[in-house]
């Protein structure tokens, strides 16, 4: 998605190296996708359609 839009940045975060950040977003299991710094969240695998729906939801928050 990041490739398709200049507005999107996608970052892989190694949770055990950055515990403070993981705690901040209450990461309990992985993978866990945090959208716009906590506006949205998707635990587990993120199939394209579902992730898209979560992003749309997060943008409305």
């Amino acid at each position, binding site marked *: *998605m*990041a*490739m*398709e*839009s*200049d*507005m*999107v*940045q*996608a*970052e*892989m*975060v*190694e*949770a*055990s*190296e*950055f515990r403070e*950040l*993981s705690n901040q*977003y209450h*990461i309990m299991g*992985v*993978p*866990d*996708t*945090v*959208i*716009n*710094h906590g506006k949205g969240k998707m635990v587990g695998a*993120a199939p*394209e*359609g579902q*992730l*898209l729906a979560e*992003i*749309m939801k*997060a*943008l409305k928050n």
Partner: protein
Amino acid sequence: MANLLDDKIRQQIGEAFKELREPVQILFFGSKEQCEYCDDTLMLVEEVASLSEKLSVQAFDVDDDAEIAANYNVTLTPGLVIAGMDDDGPVDYGVRYAGIPSGHEFSSLIQDLILVSGRDSGLSPQTRDFLAGLKEPVMLQVFVTPT
């Protein structure tokens, strides 16, 4: 330099890298401050990049090159930006790694290199439509662990 990857893995990556099309540059951001995995990460990406002439690595320091790090929105180290490379330099597609891409994430790194090299996201038309009309920034952070 000792290899982090054994011959079998190097061979598999070499095979996968046949799919590489356009040049890709890995921007590495390290830190002289406490950074347990910086050295290993740089060694790893340099070794990966050595397996294809389409790949290159440029290493930065978040303090010495603070302006560049800020431009790429990199604060965590080790940090990687997987950028396209054209005649004018790196092209940012917003693809980042924070922390060492080891274990399962190592294959994600190889896939991302191929994806950025192909300059094609492979997404569905609906997703592309939505993204094309996107007016607000979207930050996706995928938390993972190496195992």
